């Protein structure tokens, strides 16, 4: 059995816990022997413009919001940019994603760059991402969109500010019991995913 089959198996066992891009990333194991990873610093994976584009994309996915849940500079809850999602994306793409996923991702950002994403109005940007998402949904292959979204959510919802603003963080719950919750109540976070 080769490594790619091993990865597919793992996916089976986990029953879809890994997203397609993560899996694809892992399928790069076979190439690993000859290449090395981890030598570049965060910031060197994307150009400055691309970094800015991804910052904007991430912020559109998880915007900074106020108490009423509207995009606003009057911060109540930080957004993807506040918690440094673009830098995090670079680290993850460099260390945890394989060449095919990296290429897919770079093609996607390149496309946005070509279309002058940063010069568009917020509404136009949102419309463009909505279209990209709709296209991505058409097939089950990994896509630029899925990678971006997965990394934004991961970067945000596991960051200190993101966790504290979003969840009832309970590092040491001390008990386990069935309870009732009210509509709209925040989820708990136990920090046990790592």
């Amino acid at each position: 059995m080769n490594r790619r089959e091993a990865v597919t198996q793992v996916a089976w066992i986990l029953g879809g816990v890994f997203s397609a891009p993560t899996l694809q990333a892992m399928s790069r194991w076979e190439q690993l022997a000859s290449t090395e990873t981890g030598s570049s610093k965060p910031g060197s994976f994307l150009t400055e413009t691309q970094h800015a584009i991804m910052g904007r994309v991430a912020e559109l996915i998880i915007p900074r919001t106020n108490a009423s849940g509207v995009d606003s500079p009057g911060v109540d809850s930080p957004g993807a940019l506040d918690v440094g999602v673009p830098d995090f994306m670079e680290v993850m793409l460099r260390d945890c994603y394989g060449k095919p996923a990296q290429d897919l991702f770079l093609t996607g950002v390149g496309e946005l760059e070509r279309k002058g994403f940063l010069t568009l109005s917020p509404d136009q940007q949102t419309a463009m991402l909505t279209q990209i998402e709709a296209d991505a949904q058409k097939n089950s292959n990994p896509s630029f969109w899925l990678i971006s979204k997965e990394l934004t959510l991961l970067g945000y919802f596991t960051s200190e500010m993101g966790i504290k603003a979003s969840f009832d963080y309970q590092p040491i719950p001390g008990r386990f019991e069935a309870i009732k919750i009210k509509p709209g109540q925040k989820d708990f976070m136990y920090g046990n995913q790592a």
Partner: protein
Amino acid sequence: MNLNLKAEKDQTYDAIVVGSGMTGGWAAKELAEKGLRVLVLERGYELKHVEDYKTAFKDPWEFEHRGKISIVAAEEHYATMYFSAKEGSQYLYTNDKENPYVQKRPFNWIRAYHTGGKSLLWGKHTYRWNQEDFLANAKEGLGVDWPIRYDELVPWYKYVEKFVGISGQPEGLAVLPDSTFLPPMAMTAPEVHLKNSVAQKLNRPITIGRVAHLTKPQPWHSAVGRATCQFRNRCSRGCPFGAYFSSLAATLPAARQTNRVTLVHNAIVKEIILDDKAQKAKGVRVIDQNTMEVREFYAKVIFLNAGTIGSTSILMNSKSARFPNGLGNDSDQLGRNLMDHHLAIGARGDIDGFDDDYFFGARPGSLYIPRFRNWGNDKRGYLRGFGYQGGATRADWSRGATETGFGSDFKKKMTQPGPWKINLSGFGEVLPNPNNRFTLSEDQKDKWGLPQVVFDADFGENERAMRKDIMNDGAEMLEAAGFKNVVAYDNPVAHMGLGIHEMGTARMGKDPKTSILNKFNQVHTCKNVFVTDGSAMASASNVNPSLTYMALTARAANHAVEQLKARNL
């Protein structure tokens, strides 16, 4: 000459225990508490309870990759990907790249070379075997008959359960005998619903998983420094509370309290040294994993607790004029009948409603559905049975990656618990088969010059037939309880090793012609060598095996001390 004699004396103990994991810890504790001076030899590095659990208190944001494994780490841990694909726990798994093995047929060999062994990794599910488990081979004419029966093991089950501390619910079932329990963990609302529906519609009992966690520590637990479980479910990073049973938290501290135990690390036991005249073992030869220095240690009795593959490899490596094919291997059974549990199969689904039901805390355990096939009046076209572990939980923010939408509403939605999901994962019994085996390579060596292990085993017809039921029955139970989107899944290439319940390869039996060990885990033809880990198993049951290994170890240690006193060893 004088010097050598002195050295030999300095290196002589009453007993040597090879391995400090789940069973080695028990051997060390029992032998030392009964008055023996014990040397424990551990091939891996020293890991200290509490202070070396470096990731245990880390918050999610303190992990560079937020828990995801990097490509480099995945390469080093490819056999253990399924379990170790976490940033916080990979340090407890052995690096596969540095410790290679050969797969004639696919086998994932998951190891933990450090103090405590795999007792630091285990899922803590602890179930007694039942009467039938010890009778099945004889009834069906498979493998060899067990030389012991359930009743003989009961006092030893009781004895180890009390010390281990097992949370669970008594049910009075013959198929899943009750242990001595600490309070059970709670079930979530959809789990209670599943339990009731399945009891009503299919007449199958479901119970809460029986797990080795202190839900209410007793004085003997506190005495070794163990405390109540905090329900953080960060167990895979090591438990600073000593709340789950491991040899690091429980048996080794108890062993040390006797002041009769010496633990030596980085000591790879290569072989057993045979005293040819006496037909007894006189000691072991060890390679220091860092310096490559070779040393010898001597003792009256030797306990092999290096894990199933580890212990049997040591026997295979111990060749002499008397035992050219490995110590005790007159029967050619050494390395054969390699068993595991087969998993990576089951059913999952979603359930509507229960919107205001939730739970507080992260439960380090699940439901348990005991075997119901080939039990009582049920007769199937295959032999033996399977059980399920699983549970219901609510989807968290990570569901967002595959849900449509983004922006502020989406963000808010992700901060609230998602729909309930359930998973039932089957654990099936694998039959003993002499052609499922491992051998030692003739030409491929590891970096210490020891022959690499060659795996050559796979599931057979019986396992494949059973898998169909595991899928269908799982789906049937979920449907009976009204779950939706029920998917029965099977991994078409699931293979041996992934179950991490390696068993067999030096089986117990009544007859030295067909087995390696006698009813007290002694090598038939070399009585002062005991093998009390999974190597000894003559069949595999469908429940997790470690509790039974522990009971067998305590029983064997008791026998060894009695025999020593009677001067029979």
